[in-house]
């Protein structure tokens, strides 16, 4: 099974990128590949390069990769309950990470750890270093994970669904915190999520993934305002919005995402697409300019379709 198939993209230093997709779209696998966290027999990276600050990460020896992981690229995960080891104090785990990547004494590491907790707005950071993970709430634990991720001043932070397990008011706190920290330190952030709302307030650029490939890329405003790929367009139409009081049916994307063991021929979105034509069954569309400078879409019809003029009610999917 190809979970991710021919995905290529660049990220600038300090850029905040949103990677959006439904389950099975390959967004998490992409991130795990960057961190080289996919190991046989679970899976392997068949071909490709991942270049980070001039270095091909896929060619690095495992020892050097360990320095990159947690040092120059940090990652935080969805579930703050399982990503902290319950038998060690939060301080132990922070200090371990810091001493692994920075050449400092244990005493200094403890001070850095306390600062890191302070930076994520955990009250009384010095005292809380000695607490165990179960003494923190879900939101606080995710703050600890962020502190751990940022403690070594990475250049890239990969956040995989960091707020999905949290309540909405806690999510707002965490996203606000991440935005502040990323802006202050100039850290590039790759935010992986299924929630289009979360990326809207956080990201400069967005790539939409579907069935293992990127279907659309653009800056946030353009992509939300003028989606060029029918999938992006359908996804936005499927979303209920807090600020809109519509009683009519939602424009849903019909069907379900394809099996990656046996994906459709041609464009992988063709079984669900409202605008499907013969060419869509024949060849896989490459990402192409769509008339807007910053925006590219993997759709044969990208330049011809003007999705914004289409009356949604006319093509409602079942």
């Amino acid at each position, binding site marked *: 099974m190809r979970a991710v198939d021919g995905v290529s993209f660049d990220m600038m230093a300090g850029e905040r990128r949103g990677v959006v997709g439904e389950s099975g779209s390959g967004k998490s696998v992409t991130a795990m590949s960057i961190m080289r966290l996919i190991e046989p027999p679970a899976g392997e990276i068949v071909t490709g390069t991942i270049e980070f600050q001039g270095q091909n990460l896929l060619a690095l020896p495992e020892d050097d990769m360990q320095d990159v992981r947690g040092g120059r690229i940090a990652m935080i995960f969805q579930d703050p309950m399982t990503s902290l080891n319950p038998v060690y104090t939060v301080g132990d785990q922070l200090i371990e990470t810091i001493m692994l990547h920075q050449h400092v004494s244990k005493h200094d590491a403890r001070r850095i750890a306390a600062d890191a907790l302070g930076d994520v707005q955990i009250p009384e950071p010095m005292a809380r270093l000695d607490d165990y993970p179960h003494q923190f709430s879900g*939101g606080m634990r995710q703050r600890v994970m962020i502190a751990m991720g940022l403690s070594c001043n990475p250049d890239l932070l990969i956040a995989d669904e960091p707020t999905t397990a949290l309540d909405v008011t806690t999510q707002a*706190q965490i996203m606000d915190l991440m935005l502040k920290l990323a802006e202050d330190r100039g850290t590039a952030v790759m935010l992986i999520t*299924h929630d289009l709302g979360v990326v809207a307030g956080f990201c400069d650029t967005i790539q939409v993934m579907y069935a293992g490939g990127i279907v659309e890329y653009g800056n946030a405003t353009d992509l939300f305002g003028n989606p060029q790929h029918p999938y992006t367009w359908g996804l936005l139409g*499927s*979303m209920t*919005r*807090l*600020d809109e009081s519509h009683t009519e*049916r939602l424009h*849903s994307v019909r069907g379900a995402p394809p099996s990656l063991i046996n994906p459709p021929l041609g464009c992988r979105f063709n079984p669900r697409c409202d605008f499907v034509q013969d060419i869509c069954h024949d060849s896989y569309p490459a990402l192409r300019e769509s008339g807007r400078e910053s925006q590219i879409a993997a759709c044969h019809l990208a330049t011809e379709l003007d999705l914004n003029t289409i009356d949604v009610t006319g093509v409602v999917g079942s």
Partner: protein
Amino acid sequence: MTDVIQPATIPGVGDLPSDVLIRVDGLVKEFPIKRGVFFKKQIGAVQAVSGISFEIKSGETLGLVGESGSGKSTAARCILRLLEPTAGNVYFQKTQDHGADLPPIVEIAHADKQTMRILREEMQIVFQDPFASLNPRMTVASIVSEPLIVHGVGSAEERLEKVKDLLRVVGLSPEHTNRYPHEFSGGQRQRIGIARALALNPALIVLDEPVSALDVSIQAQVLNLLADLQDELGLTYLFIAHDLSVVRHISDRVAVMYLGKLVEVADRDDMYERPMHPYSHALLSAVPIPDPELELKRKRILLEGDIPSPANPPAACRFHTRCPKFVEGHCDTEEPMLRELEPGHWAACHYPEVQQLF
């Protein structure tokens, strides 16, 4: 304008207005905390639901929202008697005859087993997790026909026909009766769960986070299906969710819970455009909107800290520990009652104020 919902007033037969399907009155649910090696002793209680009262009119959708620990799912399960309520009453106006000697309005919270069995034909539930809510060892046919079997409806052939009809109604192929749940996608499984809930022609369906486990594109399909079913079958929904955008789309009225209590109840647009309780306001302001320009302009109210433990809730107003409008000596000493501040707009706050959200 300052009408207080009195808990536990027991109306006589016929006391429920004819357009009200169900009235919840002072519902309380406590979970005992037990400790001990041999025979466990109760050492305390967590009050998950602390005296909530509301009504649902026939054919409307009431959205019940709140964060985790607010008690919304517990309240729903007490209404269906899947949990035994500790106190309070639930009055249900029956819509079918059932051929039994039942009064037109039945009190559910204290109903006996036999009455409850009959009433289950009137109220059903759809669960959040489409993977956990279907028995993996039963075929679709046996899952959907279970309520029919339990209530002795029809012969085996008639039930199979009914199952096929139901599958068609929820947008599945009637040929799939012999398949097992794991052969379906999440959205399809949720449709099976909906078909099961519809089997007995209920009047009320409790939807407990029915779309929160689904992908966005599938969510929309299921929401459309629910709306269609309501139109066609005249169903009444109690829609429980933490996703406020979904609730705005589907509900007619919305009730907000915080730590086991209702803090605000209002018509849908009133709630979303003019919330009065500071918690509702903060909750709504925290919901992200898929519109980068709007997100830039929006002002967020970031609450301090986390929801306190329901085992030890704050005194008086339960929100006072996190409230941006907290007044010392009032909010922490006197509990605000749920009052009707404007017609149809209720809030439990000493200092309610209409907030503009956008």
